[in-house]
C-alpha cells in the first residue's frame, strides 16, 4: 500500500462509455408491448393501482396499449402522474405496482408495468403531443420553490387549473433529482430535460433558475407576493459516517458523484478510483456503486451495516449491482479510515449483528483497500433556509410536517416531496405530493372551505 492512490479518468476505451451507460432496459417495441400487455388480467380494484403512489389506472392504460391506442394510454398515465415517463424509468416497480401484480401469484412473474408505461409515454412524447392546456386564467398566482418532481408536478397541475405559477430553482437547471440524482443509465438521451420541457410547454409556468430560498428570497417574500406557496425543497445534506475522516481526499458524497456524472458532458473526463467502497444500502448506494463500476473501477464494494432484507435498495437493485460486478457485504460498519499523504488508502470495518433490534458490533474487524469512498447513508433536510424569515414551519422527524392535503402549519404554504415528512424518498411520491398540493391549493384559492387539518 505504498503506491499513490489510484483515482483517475479515462479508464475505458472511448467506445465503452456509451455502451456501459446505455439504456438499462431496452424499450418495448409495439409487438413486445402488445404481448406484454396481453398478460394483464384487467383486475377489478386492481392491486397494482392501489400500490401506485399516484394511483395510475394501470389496467386501463395497458388495455389501451393492446388495442392500439398508446396515446390514450399515455393520457391515462399522465392524468395521474405528469412524470409518468420518468417514473416508468426510475420507479422501483418491483416493490410497487409489479410487486402487487396478481400474475405473481399465478406465474411468479408480473406484467411488465414499468416498461409498458414507458412504451405509452414515449409514444406520446415522441410524437410531440401535448395533450394538456393551460386553464382559463384564475387571476391567482402561486410560487413553487424547487423545480424537482414535486414542484413541477404541482406547477403543471396548477397551470392546467388556470393559476399563474412561478417556480424558483436554486440550481442552474430544472429537474431536481430526475436531472441530478439518479443513475444515468436509467434516463438516457437527455430524457429528464426533455420531460421538463414537455411539462413546461403547457404554458403559464415561469421557471427562475439560480434562485435559492434563504439567499435570494425568503418565505415571507413569497407569502406576501403570492396567493399560495408550495415548497418542494428536496434534501440538502448527507448524513455523516460518524467517524473521523482526517480530511483525507477520496472521501466523497455519493449524491455529489452521481450529480457530477449526470452533468458531465464527457464521461471519459470523470475520475473514479481503482478500488471503490460505498457505504450504505439504499438506491443511492447502488446507483453510485454500479456507475463507478461502469466507469471502469476494478473493485467496487458496497458495505451495509445490516442484512440484504433491510437494504433500502430493492432485491432487484441489489441484483443489478451484483450482475454489474459490485460486491455487497452485509453486517459491517466503518470504524476508521487510513490514508497516506493525505489521501485515502483503506477503510476498516467492524462486523455487526442484530440483538433484539439493536445493532451491536461483533468486535471482528476487516480492512478494505480503497482509493475512493462514497457516503450513501441517507440525506437530510436542512431547515436553515427557512429560518430567519420570521415564519416558522412545524417539523416532524426532521422534515416539514404536512397534513393529508400537503398543507404545512403555515397558512397558505404547502409542501411535498422529500422535504416533507412521511414520504418515501421516491420520485413517484413527490409527484403525488405536488399533485395533491395543487388540488388543495386550487380548492383553497377558489374559496372552498378546507376541512380542518388532522
Amino acid at each position, binding site marked *: 500500500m505504498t503506491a499513490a492512490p489510484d483515482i483517475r479518468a479515462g479508464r475505458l476505451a472511448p467506445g465503452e462509455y456509451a455502451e456501459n451507460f446505455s439504456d438499462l432496459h431496452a424499450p418495448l417495441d409495439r409487438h413486445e408491448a402488445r404481448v406484454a400487455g396481453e398478460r394483464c*388480467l384487467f*383486475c*377489478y*380494484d*386492481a*392491486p397494482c393501482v392501489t400500490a401506485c403512489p399516484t394511483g395510475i389506472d394501470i389496467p386501463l392504460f395497458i388495455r389501451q396499449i393492446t388495442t392500439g391506442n398508446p396515446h390514450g394510454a399515455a393520457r391515462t398515465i399522465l392524468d395521474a402522474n405528469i412524470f409518468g415517463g420518468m417514473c416508468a424509468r426510475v420507479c422501483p416497480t418491483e416493490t410497487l405496482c409489479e410487486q402487487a401484480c*396478481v400474475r405473481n*401469484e*399465478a406465474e411468479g412473474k408480473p406484467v411488465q408495468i414499468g416498461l409498458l408505461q414507458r412504451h405509452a409515454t414515449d409514444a406520446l412524447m415522441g410524437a410531440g403531443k401535448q395533450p394538456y392546456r393551460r386553464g382559463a386564467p384564475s387571476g391567482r398566482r402561486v410560487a413553487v420553490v424547487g423545480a424537482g418532481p414535486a414542484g413541477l408536478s404541482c406547477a403543471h397541475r396548477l397551470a392546467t387549473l388556470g393559476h399563474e405559477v412561478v417556480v424558483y430553482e436554486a440550481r442552474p437547471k430544472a429537474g431536481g433529482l430526475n436531472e441530478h440524482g439518479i443513475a444515468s443509465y436509467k434516463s438516457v438521451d437527455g430524457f429528464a430535460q426533455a420531460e421538463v420541457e414537455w411539462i413546461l410547454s403547457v404554458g403559464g409556468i415561469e421557471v427562475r433558475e439560480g434562485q435559492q430560498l434563504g439567499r435570494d428570497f425568503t418565505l415571507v417574500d413569497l407569502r406576501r407576493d403570492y396567493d399560495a406557496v408550495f415548497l418542494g425543497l428536496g434534501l440538502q445534506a448527507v448524513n455523516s459516517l460518524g467517524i473521523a475522516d482526517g480530511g483525507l481526499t477520496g472521501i466523497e458524497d455519493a449524491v455529489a458523484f452521481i450529480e457530477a456524472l449526470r452533468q458531465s458532458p464527457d464521461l471519459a473526463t470523470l475520475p473514479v478510483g481503482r478500488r471503490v467502497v460505498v457505504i450504505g444500502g439504499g438506491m443511492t448506494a447502488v446507483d453510485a456503486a454500479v456507475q463507478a463500476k461502469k466507469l471502469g473501477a476494478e473493485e467496487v464494494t458496497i458495505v451495509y451495516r445490516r442484512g440484504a432484507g433491510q437494504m433500502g435498495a430493492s432485491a432487484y437493485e441489489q441484483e443489478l449491482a451484483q450482475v454489474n460486478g459490485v460486491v455487497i457485504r452485509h453486517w459491517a460498519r466503518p470504524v476508521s479510515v487510513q490514508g497516506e499523504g493525505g489521501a485515502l488508502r483503506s477503510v476498516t470495518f467492524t462486523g455487526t449483528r442484530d440483538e433484539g433490534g439493536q445493532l451491536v458490533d461483533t468486535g471482528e474487524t476487516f480492512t478494505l483497500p480503497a482509493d475512493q469512498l462514497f457516503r450513501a447513508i441517507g440525506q437530510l433536510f436542512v431547515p436553515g433556509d427557512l429560518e430567519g424569515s420570521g415564519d416558522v414551519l412545524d417539523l416532524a422527524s426532521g422534515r416539514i410536517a404536512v397534513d393529508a392535503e400537503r398543507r404545512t402549519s403555515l397558512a397558505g404554504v404547502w409542501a411535498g416531496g422529500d422535504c416533507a415528512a412521511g414520504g418515501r424518498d421516491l420520485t413517484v411520491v413527490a409527484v403525488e405530493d405536488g399533485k395533491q398540493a395543487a388540488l388543495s391549493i386550487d380548492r383553497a384559492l377558489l374559496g372552498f372551505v378546507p376541512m380542518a387539518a388532522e
Partner: protein
Amino acid sequence: MADLSVNFVGIKAPNPFWLASAPPTDKAYNIERAFRAGWGGVVWKTLGEEGPPVVNVSGPRYGAVHGPDRRVAAFNNIELITDRPLEINLQEITEMKRRWPDRAIVVSLMVPCEEEAWKRILPRVEATGADGIELNFGCPHGMSERGMGSAVGQVPEYVEMVARWCKAHSRMPVIVKLTPNITDIRKPAEAARRGGADAVSLINTINSIMGVDLDRMVPTPHTDGKATHGGMCGPAVKPIALNMVAEIARAPATRGMPISGIGGIETWRDAAEYMALGCGTVQVCTAAMVYGFKIVQEMITGLEAYMDERGYARVSDFVGAAVPNVTDWQYLNLDYAVKARIDQDLCIKCGRCHVACEDTSHQAITHMVNGVRHFEVIDEECVGCNLCATICPIENCITMQPLVNEVDRRTGRFVDGSYSNWTQHPNNPMAKPLEPLEPAE
C-alpha cells in the same frame, strides 16, 4: 395401444385425422408432405368442370381474428375451388393414391346443378382410384354467386337431387358437405340421406367479414379497395359446428348417419369432442394452415393416450358416446342446483369474478371481507350460473359444486336429487303434469 384406424363408409384410413378440402390439399406436393407427416386421409381440394380453370384474385385471400399473442382465433378465405386444370389434378390424385394406398383420398367436387355435368366428371374421378367423393355444397363465396357451393347446399331439394345423381353414376361412397349458412342444418342432412348419400361432412365455412380497415374504410381482406364476404373457419367456429353435428346426430331422421366433423379442430381434444358427438372422422384445415402438417402428430398421440386411459380399444368405442346426453332445454332438470366454490389457495385475487357477478349478474361474490381483499361466493345470491368459473383466468380455481341433500340457501328449497323439467313445471302454461318423464315431487 388404442387402434386409431377407421372405416368410414367403406373408406379405410390409419387414423381419423383427415385434411379438409382446402388450400393444403390442392396438389400432390402438399399431399405428399401431409401423408409423410402422418395424416390419415385428405379431401382433395374441390375440382370443377373440364375447361378453363377458375381464376382467383392475385391478392389477399385470407383474413383472421387474432387472440392474445396473435393466435388465430378465427380465419376466413375468399379463395375459390382449385384453379389448376382438371386433368393435372386427376393425374396427381392417381399418383398419390398409388403411392399411399393405405391413406384415404376423397375428392371434393363442384360442378353445375346439371346431371350431365356430374355424369361427365364422376367416371374420371372414379378412374383415379380415389376412395370417395365429397360434394362441395358449402363454399359460401364466389362459387355460390354462380349457383354452386352453398347456393346448392341451402336448397334441400337440390342436395337430394345431386346426391342421387352421384350415387346413380358412381360406385364411390358419397359424402355431402353441408353449409352452415342455413337456418336448420337438419334439413339438408335429411335431404342428403334421402338422396342416398353415405355420409355428411360439416361444417363448411360461415359467411363472414373479418374486420374493417378503418383508415381505408373497407373490410379486410380487400382487393384493390373493395371487399367481399368470405368463409370463416378456425377455433371460433367449433361451437357452432359441434351444435350442428349434434343436431344431426340426435335427430330421428338422420340418427346414425355417418358424419365427418369439420370446424376449428386444432388438437386431439377438439377431435375427440367431435367424435363423442358422432363423427367417425374429422377434417382439419385452419390448424394446418397456421402451424403446418406436424400438428397431426400431437393429435394422434393425444387421442391414443386418451383412449388408452379411458379403455377405448378402437375409435368406434366412443364415437357418438355423448349424443344421448344432448337434449332440449325443456328436459333439463330444474331441480338440480349448484353453487360456485372458489379455491382460496388457487385464487390470485384478480377480482374478475367479483366484478363480473357484481356488474352483470347476481351480486353473489364478495370483494372485501373484514377489510381484506377476499373473494367468496354468497350462497344466498348464487344461482349457479357459471359466469365466474367461466371468466376466471385460473383453471379449476372456481368450480361448480352440486347441492346434495341440502337446502339451496338462495331459494330455501331442499335439493334431494329429484328430477323435474319445464314440461311439468307449474309456471308453464303448457305443462303436461299427467305425463312427467319422472315421478313428480
